[in-house]
């Protein structure tokens, strides 16, 4: 993920508004809307690559991002959704749509990540195209062993659609039906990629196929692009184009252009919506929210009090129930750390002491998240020591203040 906040004042406003309203359960609609726009502006637009199984989705994504992490085969793939995002180095992680916290575990390859049965596998790569958009390689539909509803749900998280259809049996009823069930906004930003046009049986009458596609579908898609994976793969080794003519003939250039156009449109639209929201809804409320926040800044003493009672709770829990397992103990510790972290995040708390404390807590949370603790009996011991240390730091912070 690249950070765009530096050159986008709207992001800063949205971010402040979000933190000011974080605690308010009731702010509901506005907070969620602001959050959606914030995510839309903060990260790249997401391109969902969808279609029936074996339609060439992974072949296409592989050559756009310049890796062959995903195997392509005429057999229906058993991998979950793969989300590609920008990163300075290649990492493979797992995620669940319902989890807000990022799972930081890393995997050596897709198969071992898939063993955890995650909703999606997150891959970061230093590929150019990922600076512009994120890519989602979705599982294929019309597979008797996979329900399409899951795929449809996942498309909800995207802004741009690449629908792959195999030229050999292009645009059948099952495709049309699944496509028609996608969210309207996504369909508006759709590109139809007609794959396999390199095959001899297609090449000889491609014009007639394209004629039918254009008649039936040009009003439903931003562009219809005949595409040849094998040729494109040869022309674009490791993510950079080595043979421009071949890349153009394969449909690659046209594809990238159209993705760029749609990405720009999506950004422009998000920005316009953000501006409108800020102007109409957020700005009028911002002053009041700030004042409210200033009045409700938690006192260091209160934070310490909260910490102590939580830790006391854990202690009496452990003493009262000797059968409590290591895992449960660790997750209690993790919750305690997160609780106080959240209090420390209050926008009204400022200064180097707070910053140092926040860093301490974040570091601790990180330890718990990644299970960096020692194995066996030493784990809980280490955790207890961390809690002790944190309490100590909090105590001296409160003492300074008071």
């Amino acid at each position, binding site marked *: 993920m690249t950070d765009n906040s530096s050159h986008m004042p709207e992001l800063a406003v949205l971010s402040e508004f979000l933190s000011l309203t974080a605690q308010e359960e009731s702010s509901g609609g506005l907070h969620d809307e602001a959050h959606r726009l914030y995510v839309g502006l903060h990260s790249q637009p997401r391109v969902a690559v969808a279609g029936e199984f074996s339609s060439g989705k992974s072949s296409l994504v592989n050559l756009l991002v310049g890796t062959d992490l995903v195997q392509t085969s*005429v*057999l229906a793939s058993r991998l979950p959704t793969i989300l590609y995002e920008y990163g300075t180095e290649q990492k493979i992680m797992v995620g669940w749509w319902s989890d807000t916290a990022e799972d930081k575990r890393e995997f050596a390859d897709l198969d071992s990540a898939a063993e955890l049965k995650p909703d999606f596998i997150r891959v970061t790569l230093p590929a150019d195209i990922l600076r512009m958009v994120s890519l989602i390689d979705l599982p294929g539909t*019309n597979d*008797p062993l996979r329900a399409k509803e899951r795929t449809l749900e996942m498309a909800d998280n995207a802004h741009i659609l690449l629908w792959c259809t195999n030229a050999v049996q292009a645009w059948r*009823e099952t495709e049309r039906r699944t496509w028609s069930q996608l969210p309207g906004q996504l369909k508006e930003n759709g590109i139809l990629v007609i794959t396999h046009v390199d095959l001899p049986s297609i090449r000889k009458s491609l014009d007639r196929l394209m004629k039918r596609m254009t008649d039936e579908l040009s009003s439903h898609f931003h562009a219809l692009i005949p595409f040849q994976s094998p040729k494109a793969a040869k022309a674009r080794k490791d993510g950079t184009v080595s043979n421009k003519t071949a890349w153009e003939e394969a449909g690659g250039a046209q594809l990238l252009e159209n993705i760029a156009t749609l990405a720009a449109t999506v950004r422009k639209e998000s920005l316009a919506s953000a501006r409108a929201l800020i102007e109409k809804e957020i700005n009028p409320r911002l002053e009041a929210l700030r004042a409210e926040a200033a009045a409700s800044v938690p006192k260091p003493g209160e934070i310490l009090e909260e910490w102590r009672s939580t830790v006391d709770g854990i202690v009496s829990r452990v003493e009262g129930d000797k059968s409590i397992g290591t895992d449960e103990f660790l997750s209690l510790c993790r919750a305690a750390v997160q609780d106080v972290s959240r209090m420390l995040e209050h926008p009204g708390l400022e200064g180097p002491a707070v910053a140092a404390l926040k860093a301490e807590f974040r570091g601790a949370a990180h330890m718990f998240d990644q299970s960096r603790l020692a194995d066996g009996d030493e784990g809980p011991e280490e955790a207890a020591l961390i809690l002790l240390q944190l309490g100590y730091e909090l105590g001296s912070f409160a003492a300074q203040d008071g």
Partner: protein
Amino acid sequence: MNDQANQPRVGQAIGASLEATKQNLLDVTQRFVAADADEELRDRVEPIVDSLTSHFSKVAFVGQVKAGKSTLVNCLTHKADLLPSDINPWTTVVTQLNFGHPSGRHSGAIFRFFDDAQWDRLAKRGGRLGELTEGLLEDYKKEMLNEQVEAMRHRAQLRLSDQFETLLGKAHRFEKVNRSVIERYVCSGDAPQERIRNPQAGRFNDITRVAEIYFEQEPFGTPICVMDTPGINDPLLIREEITQQHLENAEYFVVVLSAHQPLTESDVRLVRILKALKRDQIVVFVNRIDEIHHLAEDFEELRGRVKANLNNELEGLDVPVLMGSAAWANYSITGDESDIDPEALEEFAKFRGVELPEGGLENADEPTRRAIARQVSGLTELEDTLSTMLLNGAKSSFLGSAASALVSLSRQSSEQTKIRLDYLSQESGPGRTVLTPETKEEAIKLVRDRLSMRAHAITQAGRNAWAKLLTNLEGDATKFAKAQQEGLAGVLATLKRGQDIHIDLDPLRDRLRDNYVKRFDEIQNRIWLDLRALSKELRELFDPEIEKRLRHINIETLGVLSLSPRTDPLYRTVTLDLSTGWLGSLFESSGTKAEKMVNTIQVQFADMCRELIESRREEFETAVERSANSYIIDVTRILEELAGKNVSSVDTSEAKREADAAEAQAQLELTETVVKELEGIAEELGLETELDD
């Protein structure tokens, strides 16, 4: 050119083995009839011979659009380029290619058009959606479909102008056909308002209901109809509808899949329908393997997955899965190389262990290249599999029934001759027949009365069972519909325009099917047992001496046993009728709407169930009646014999009697040979011919 690739394999032509067995049976039957001049016997044999000579195997090619059905049919029939094929969805009409049609028609074609009623039905069926398993029709789809039907009418009118109305219900007949004639009727052609490549192609396709094209039996080994059908899963929903309506007309199916997407949900759904139709003579042909890069790596796994998924779907039925390429087959037949990637062919040939000449395919001469293409095209496997399927299918249907009926009749005939011989050789002279004309008439009456009483009882019991089943099924449908009502009202209350409603009707369909099939089997079994018991009961009406003579006569049960349940009406699309239309229904409460919808479900399923039951009930009754009639004929014949019908009158001389005896003896010998041979054939067919006791 004398390359073998181009020639159908002599002696291994499709259906040759079936034809050989059939011919054998006919030959023996001819000798049988020649040996026994009895008129009534001939009357009994005649329909059996008819069933053999008029039999016509029907194979349908089905599958998704652009799987390559038409191309594959062209290859199998060795009529390259006969059926039009294209890159866009193309076949629109069920096209029957008849080879050696029993009517004797061996050339030309008939293209039959919809009549008003059929057209209307099609248009209405258009209103019922082709999505068999998804049930309810949503608003926007209804619109879409109406548009499609309208467009179809419009197109037909554009193409045919004032001919349109006058053609409906008629047919076009041709003494000779070729590709360009066929093209006018069976494929969609280019849209008439566009720049047109071939203005004739597709001219009549919108109004053509069925195409029948006739050929000599060559290259097939048996009279056969090969049917090409419009592809399923076409966004033009009517095409799938047309194919579905015709599925019942075939007994054997070649399900064509594309290797690009071996076995999709849509294919599985098709197989489910075939299963519901009790059509289990299926072979799967995974086509277009020439287009898959490096298929060798995935070949076994691909076939394995297709097999496993099908096996699962068909509850253990082992369907042959063949892998091939109509493009390679076509090349081997025509020598046209334009669609061929020689590298793919070479790679795959190596993988299959085909011996290549030195220097590879490139260095091979044309006949060799074509022979290699044929070897890996899967066409030979398809031919062999079809042959086996045809023979197996025949065994369990017409061929099997004919053989066992003939065994029984020939045994009766020999019994008859034995009775006659007995009389003729009696010391005390002729005239001492076991039955007098009066006692014979009494006996016949006795049998007839008892038989008709029992047959009536069987029919009545059947009717009761069917009626009970109908109530039962209707109850299931009602229960299901009511259970949906509440949930549906909730969904409807929050429904927005353009949104879909989903009621999964499959659980109901499955429950009805299971219930129906189970009871069907019970009813069938009951009737079968009753008929067997009746055979015994009727024989026991007689003295042991007569009973012994009747031991070869049984009430035929094959007619009853060969009936099978028909569940396809259940899989028809169910319409959601919000008769006031979308806008009107907006003003009704969602409760009322839900109730209406539930009623439609109930009514439509009740109709289906009635249809399931009524047609089969009638068939059972006809089968029982037919068996009873044959039984009476057979028994009468033996009783007549016992009453001395065929023995010369009292005053004939000793010499005459001896001559008669010699003649009867000769006939007996002939008949006994026939019996032996027929028993041999029956055994080969795996039939039971042992006597009860």
